């Protein structure tokens, strides 16, 4: 249908629209008009993606000068594909309505591993290996060697692309990963480089978070995206963690040993080159003396090594004399690695600021801050000069060089933690150096500064006011939308005690208590008896899951459970988990019914939807707090407290509740769906926890359902399920939660929508 959103003609590819989708469009349009950033929460299953796409495409068509590009960031490859499907639908609708080809080019970009069509390289399974082998076939010097000697292998697809692909841009249309591969096959062009090349002039780019947030990758891939773009981060409730991960470095003992090997390789290569071809080293040396930035860095295939963020004024400067010649630099690297090795030889945990580290490295091995800052850059230059084609071996050394550069660049917002052993295995020596970023705003700051509009959206962003604080930006619009429902199709309940009146809680003091464990078990058994089809349970950690299951086994609860449903368990092993999932789905499909025990923050809680009969009930056993004793977390909490005035408890609760909400949201994937949400912990009923749930869950969580016992909970479930089992057709929804164009345009509804938009 064609909509009028605040004066903008929007083509919406469906015949019906949800009222909240329309409100979402209104808010989004305002943010685009204002060229500011916004934060929007809308429940999962209400069609966020298609709403976003149709509004932004319409806006691009109406204001082609103000808004040139949409960059849509998603988390996983399946999500990426889903976005592409929605986009395809939208473009087909445009074509049908306007009767001509649309001049819009949308494409998905993923890593080489997902896009490679080289017959042997694409067989590799590990991403890093694919990258390394690709580099060894396409690096500029390899190709130069091939020109001289045909025996040197190169990639024919890249050659094809290089020869012809750049002049012929991709014709307009929508390309997902498979389409790109197919197009590459027919033209004999490399789809990966084709996609990367096309980014600059595509209208819609869909890729992973990392291409924008990780400074090492963003520099290469997203450099040329213009300011007048809108960036969308979908499923962004974890965005702060992604930011932090992209700036943090972890160094283990094994990694350092590998570094030593790489350094020896460097040494031998240098001495070889000195004998055979000293000209190249001299050339590099001269360039460094002149202080010229590497001209070759622009060459697209030589991208494997990039600098982590450095202020540009430093990059303009010449490389310091101490690491100018190749031998000196290798000796320098050796010292750095040896120094870190000595630091790892600790007996107790050390926490240190970057400044302290810099002073120590200066006194111990006489390394100044300045050359340290240039380590990453210098290493990249050296590897390029030495023409080392097998990069996979060098990744440890590259990690260390990034660490060196980061530690000397940022003295605030980072901390260094050296742990001699893991907390859970204090006898096994396994020293690890964590260089941990504490401030999630550092990585995302360039994104906010560079693009005119950044949209952060997810089904669960509550409490909204936390994100502007921890990401340090000023949104022009910050809104949470609820779901309009024709019937009450979610039933959130807080179960606080068992039938024996013992309080249920995953608190540390009571979690070992057999009474609590038995009560949890009874709750699950009774719900399994009352609820049809699939039930998903979430525990706070793998460890807790295992202890509980083992004592349930002793208490005979597992036997009781298996009388009603089959039991599946998520484990840390990805393959095992996916097998369990397949069988879980099978059991739900054929009516046997199944229970899946999984872990909050695990794979199941983040990416897998249990729509309709796959998830009729979600049980959350305990509040999923993070492991609070972790030193990295402690350091981050301290930093948040000092820099942003966020109290430790506030942040911990915020983090726990967003994961709880994420788990609960798994069972609701649309308006025809229905599901029970049981929060089995006494502490959920406290105001500070309850108020942090997303609005769309909060509004159905009645006060009377906040302090239930197992028995009461089951009673309510039964009654509610009987209601839900009544036939439910589209006609019931029409006019309330589903609108036709006429209904949408009716004055009454417009008024309601306006109210909603302002009220929140």
């Amino acid at each position, binding site marked *: 249908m064609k909509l009028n959103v605040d004066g903008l003609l929007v083509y919406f590819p469906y015949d019906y629209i949800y009222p909240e989708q329309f409100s979402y469009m209104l808010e989004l349009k305002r943010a685009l008009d204002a*060229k500011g950033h916004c934060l929007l929460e809308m429940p999962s299953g209400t069609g966020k993606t298609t709403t976003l796409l149709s509004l932004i495409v319409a806006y691009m068509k109406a204001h082609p000068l103000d808004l040139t590009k949409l960059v849509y960031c998603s988390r996983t490859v399946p999500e990426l594909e889903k976005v592409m499907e929605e986009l395809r639908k939208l473009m087909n609708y445009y074509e049908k309505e306007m009767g001509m080809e649309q001049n819009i080019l949308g494409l998905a970009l993923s890593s080489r591993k997902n896009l490679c069509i080289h017959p042997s390289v694409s067989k590799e399974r590990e991403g890093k290996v694919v990258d390394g082998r690709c580099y060894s076939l396409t690096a500029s010097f390899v190709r130069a060697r091939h020109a001289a000697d045909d025996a040197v292998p190169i990639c024919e697809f890249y050659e094809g692309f290089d020869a012809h692909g750049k002049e012929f841009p991709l014709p307009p249309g929508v390309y997902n990963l498979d389409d790109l591969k197919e197009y590459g096959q027919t033209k004999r062009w490399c789809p990966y480089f084709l996609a990367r090349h096309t980014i600059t002039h595509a209208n819609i780019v869909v890729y992973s978070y990392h291409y924008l947030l990780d400074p090492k990758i963003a520099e290469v891939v997203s450099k040329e995206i213009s300011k007048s773009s809108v960036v969308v981060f979908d499923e962004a409730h974890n965005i702060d963690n992604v930011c932090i991960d992209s700036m943090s470095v972890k160094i283990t003992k094994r990694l350092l040993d590998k570094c030593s090997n790489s350094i020896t390789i460097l040494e031998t290569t240098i001495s070889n080159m000195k004998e055979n071809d000293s000209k190249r080293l001299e050339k590099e040396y001269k360039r460094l003396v002149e202080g010229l930035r590497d001209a070759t860095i622009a060459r697209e295939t030589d991208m494997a090594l990039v600098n982590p963020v450095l202020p540009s004024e430093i990059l303009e400067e010449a490389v310091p004399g101490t690491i100018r010649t190749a031998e000196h630099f290798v000796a320098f690297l050796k010292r750095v690695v040896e120094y870190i090795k000595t630091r790892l030889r600790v007996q107790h945990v050390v926490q240190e600021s970057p400044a302290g580290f810099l002073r120590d490295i200066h006194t111990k091995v006489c390394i100044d801050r300045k050359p340290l800052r240039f380590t990453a850059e210098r290493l990249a230059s050296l590897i390029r000069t030495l023409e080392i084609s097998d990069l996979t071996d060098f990744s440890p050394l590259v990690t260390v060089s990034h660490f060196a550069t980061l530690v000397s660049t940022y*003295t605030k917002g980072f901390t260094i933690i050296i742990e001699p052993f893991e907390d859970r295995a204090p006898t096994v020596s396994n*020293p690890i150096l964590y260089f941990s970023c504490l401030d999630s705003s550092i990585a995302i700051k360039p994104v906010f500064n560079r693009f005119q509009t950044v949209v952060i959206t997810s089904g669960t962003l509550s409490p909204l006011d936390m994100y502007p604080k921890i990401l340090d930006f000023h949104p022009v619009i910050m809104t949470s939308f609820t779901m309009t429902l024709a019937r009450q199709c979610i039933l959130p309940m807080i179960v606080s005690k068992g039938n024996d009146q013992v309080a249920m809680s995953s608190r540390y003091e009571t979690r070992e208590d057999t009474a609590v464990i038995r009560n949890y078990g009874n709750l699950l058994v009774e719900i399994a008896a009352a609820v049809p089809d699939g039930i998903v349970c979430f525990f706070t950690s793998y460890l807790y899951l295992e202890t509980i299951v083992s004592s349930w086994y002793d208490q005979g609860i597992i036997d009781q459970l298996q009388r009603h449903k089959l039991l599946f368990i998520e484990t840390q092993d990805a393959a095992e988990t996916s097998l369990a999932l397949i069988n879980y789905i099978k059991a739900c499909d054929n009516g046997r019914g199944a229970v899946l025990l999984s872990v909050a923050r695990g794979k199941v809680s983040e990416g897998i939807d249990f729509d309709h009969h796959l998830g009729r009930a979600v049980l959350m056993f305990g509040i999923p707090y993070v492991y609070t004793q972790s030193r990295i977390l402690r350091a981050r909490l301290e930093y948040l407290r000092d820099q942003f005035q966020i109290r430790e408890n506030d942040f911990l609760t915020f983090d726990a509740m967003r994961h709880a909400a994420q788990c609960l949201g798994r069972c609701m994937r649309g308006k025809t769906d229905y599901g029970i949400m049981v929060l089995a912990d006494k502490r959920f009923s406290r105001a500070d926890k309850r108020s942090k749930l997303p609005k769309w869950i909060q509004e159905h969580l009645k006060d009377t359902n906040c302090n239930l016992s197992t028995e009461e909970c089951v009673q309510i479930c039964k009654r509610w399920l009987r209601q839900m089992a009544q036939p439910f057709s589209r006609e019931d929804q029409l006019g309330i939660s589903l609108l036709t164009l006429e209904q949408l345009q009716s004055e009454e509804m417009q008024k309601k929508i306006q109210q909603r938009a302002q009220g929140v």
Partner: protein
Amino acid sequence: MDDYQTCPKCKTTKYRNPAMVLMVNACGHALCESCVELLFAKGSGACPECKCPLRRNNFRVQLFEDPAVDKEVDIRKRILKEFNKRQEDFPSLREYNDYLEEVETIIFNLVYDIDPTNTNKMIDNYKKENKDITQKNRNRQSQEEMELEVLLEAEKAQQSEKANLYVNAELEEKKQKHKAREKLIDELMFSDADAKSIVASHVQATAALAKEQPKAAAQLSSGVVKSSKFSSGVQIGLRGQHTNSFLPIPKQEDLPLYRYTAPVFDYDGPPPPPIEKLGKLNYFANIRAANITERAGGYTEAMSCCRALQEALGGLFYSPQLTHKAAVLATNASTPDTDDMETT
């Protein structure tokens, strides 16, 4: 961890003898402690590997896994004592970098015994030429070191201060909570008032306290020096640019519901036209239209126009007679004072 460390002389390993300590001397070859005692009983001797004459006193515990690094660091420290010119001593960065490279070459040569005669000559020459600067620089910290020192100091100060602050704040909070609870119980025990009303007033009091607390915390933390810049000069976040940050939606507190009561204005003037009609009456012709950014937040030009009109019309009916006398009196009273001041 370092179980594979072996003494090259007696072949003892760290695994067999956990107390074994490897030592190195100027030549960069390792020896275990007991071998050192055995071989250098006289106080001096030759290195068993390179036959270099060594003194026992110069043996140190090996710090690094690779003894060559130990040797290099040793030499480096020695050389850097002499070659301690700073960037300030050079006219350009280029020359400073050349100097750094020269130093590096010297160290490299010494470590790998390349061309020892020339290298030593170079060192001697340098020593002679640059005696003054070397002497001077020895007593002076480099700029970088100073920067680091300052940073560390600041960190330390901040840490101790903050630790105190937060511990105190937490204690205080606990005490207050405890007090409040006791007070409630006391009241419930001894007062004759309705129990419900007592509980209600208690709830309100704690809510009010809770509201004050964040402010107090903010005040506490404002006392500590807050850094808004990285050492590289890049600003941390946006705080540096907008000192008073705003949030479009204030944080919700758990307080009793707010009830709106219309304020009574002492307006003293003709009523301005209502805000909805301003457009029709063509008031907007002379003012700047609100731009898009402002509109997004809900602002319209009618608001400021309406306010301006209110200000313009307000007080037009104000009659000075009522308060004139008081004003005159006030001025009269103040003038003699100033006269006195001048005369004295």
